[in-house]
């Protein structure tokens, strides 16, 4: 059998980029995680020492790392179902018609996803402000005392997650809309001929046909929420007292602000393994599902 070179030549550039900028950094991080590299070591490689698993041991006895893990888990549990359900719901409603108004609404829902996070953080920071934020002002009109949206450790998590949910639905709505428009009209017509109500049609026909889109959105949303960084970084910088610090933010603080590259690399390897395991579990369960 003659080996055809053309396919390999076409995928080579993308593969090389992926290997160089995706796979190689992970291997380098793995290597660095076994050293005590910091800023001094960065300047002079002879100062770097091999310390084996010390970074990992220190990581698992670090209370702030556990707090970051708990926070990340909580964010994922709050955020992922919210994003999926909200995106699906909005997509189903937007699919109702193709008029100009509905098409304008699509852009409207997509805009938060493409707006710069710093701009969003500035605006939401002022909305949430305890003294002169819009939310507290509205609450004061109905006699509710000011709420510390971003200062209360428990409430701050929900406030930050809310902004991320608002942003995260944008892209997923577009994906679901595209999938919805791939649902064959014959099935819907047949269902209405059989006398099914619109809700019944949606639940029993449309949603099962969206299985693959839902699966794709679930995986990408879970991966995104396990890497939750932008919103806590710009809104609360991980505060108050680490209540909104997620694992990526923890890694950023130890790696870039404290320049403890070895320690942060160990943390990033741990995060990588968590995400990989979660994704593999989902893929396996999907395969089992499809085989049935």
């Amino acid at each position, binding site marked *: 059998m003659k080996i055809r070179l053309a396919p390999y030549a076409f995928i080579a550039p993308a593969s090389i980029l992926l290997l160089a900028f995706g796979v190689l950094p992970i291997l380098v991080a793995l290597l660095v995680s076994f050293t005590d590299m910091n800023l001094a070591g960065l*300047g002079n490689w002879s100062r770097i020492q091999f310390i084996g698993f010390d970074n990992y041991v220190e990581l698992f006895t670090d209370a702030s790392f556990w707090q970051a893990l708990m926070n990340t888990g909580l964010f994922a549990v709050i955020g992922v179902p919210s994003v999926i359900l909200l995106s699906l719901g909005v997509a189903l409603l937007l699919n109702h018609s193709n008029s100009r108004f509905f098409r304008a609404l699509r852009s409207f829902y997509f805009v938060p996803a493409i707006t710069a996070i710093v701009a969003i953080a500035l605006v939401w920071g002022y909305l*949430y402000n305890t*003294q002169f934020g819009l939310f507290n002002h509205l609450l004061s009109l109905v006699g509710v005392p000011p709420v510390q949206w*971003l200062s209360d450790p428990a409430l701050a998590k929900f406030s930050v997650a809310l902004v991320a949910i608002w942003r995260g639905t944008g892209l997923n709505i577009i994906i679901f809309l595209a999938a919805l428009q791939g649902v064959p009209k014959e099935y819907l017509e047949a269902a209405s001929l059989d006398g099914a109500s619109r809700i019944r049609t949606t639940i029993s026909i449309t949603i099962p046909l969206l299985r693959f889109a839902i699966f794709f959105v679930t995986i990408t949303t879970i991966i995104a929420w396990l890497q939750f960084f932008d919103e806590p970084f710009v809104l609360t910088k991980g505060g*108050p*007292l680490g209540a909104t610090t997620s694992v990526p933010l923890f890694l950023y603080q130890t790696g*870039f*602000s404290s*320049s403890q590259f070895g320690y942060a690399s160990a943390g990033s390897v741990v995060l990588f393994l968590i995400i990989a395991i979660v994704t593999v579990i989902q893929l396996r369960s999907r395969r089992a599902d499809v085989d049935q």
Partner: protein
Amino acid sequence: MKRTRLVWVAPLAITTLALAGCSAGDSAAGNPDELTVWVMGDSSANFEELVAPFVEDSGIDVDVVAIPWDSVDQKFTTAVASGNGPDVLQIGISKLRTFADSGALLPLDEATVADYPNLAADTFIDGVSGDATAIGGEVVSVPWVADTRVLFYRSDILEENGITEPPTTWDELRADAKTLAKRGDGQFGYYIPQWDSALPVIMTWDHGDEIVTADGAVDFDTPGFAAAVDLYSGLYADGSVPTNADFDQTQGFISGAAPMLVSGPYLANAISSAAPELEGKWSVAPIPGADDDRSVLAGSNLGVWGATDNQEGALALLDFLSTAETQLTWYGLDGQLPTVKSALEDESLASDPLTAVYSAQLNNATILPLVPNWDGETGKALLDALNSIVLTGADRGSTLDALFQATGSTSIN
């Protein structure tokens, strides 16, 4: 036809952007008539104006690059990793230890600076001169500009509440703050920034204790620190300070919600520009004290990149920047206080009442100990401990014990 033409626009735009990105990183090759200077801030215009006489006299072309404060860490890390740095760089004192530890700065020992009289240690104020900023016994920077913390107060609001003079001791401040907080809901007497790790240190110093032992190890287990914690938590317990993390101190001062603050000269500029109508209704006073009224000395130094290929030019520039004349010109251009003693004694500074207070305070101010990563480790641990006591009601004894444990092994050596 139209479609084909439009199709080419996108790839062309992307290619142009990519090429622009590639060419932006052109660093100066080793040229003895050039110097690259990294200045922190948003604009290099003022600094370029400042060094214009130097450029004329020496014939050296000075390329000033403005680095925003937020990206200082990243820029420096990249420079250390790649080996391509500037020739001269501004170093915030809180970052001095980190930069020095990287080994990227040129040691400025007596032999190196012998030819430059303006760089002698006694030219500068004691808090930052010579060995005060030495790390591991080695001096790697010279002082540039100074910053300190003083008491800002709304004289009109204080008078309305029967306080004719600003408080001179911390106990007086606490009592005054309690009186002012009684004005009503949403009105406080003082503001403690939850991110300010210098404030509890100032309070400790003023109650007679250092936060490092004679050997240089960090030690918070002292009576002075205990008094500082009493004061810090007392202000919260009295209800005199706001508890939300997003309190805007400038707005709070202007609206009167926080009529007393401890802050630096930048706040004076912020208040003057945001609320010029408040002129005459506020002023500054030396920081309150107890056994001592010592404040913190912050600011920036200047360092020379170790791998520079124009060492003479760099040192000549440092020498130029350390003359009283240049420092006073810089104060006029940028509002940052000089570190050169003779500049601080100049009439132009003494005539402005605010600046007179700052300069006087500079004579009784010391830098935070140069431990590795104050902001990320020791300072953060200190703030987390204090904030968890006052904001979440954590047990004082065990929280402080944990703090002593966590920071006890950090040292300036």
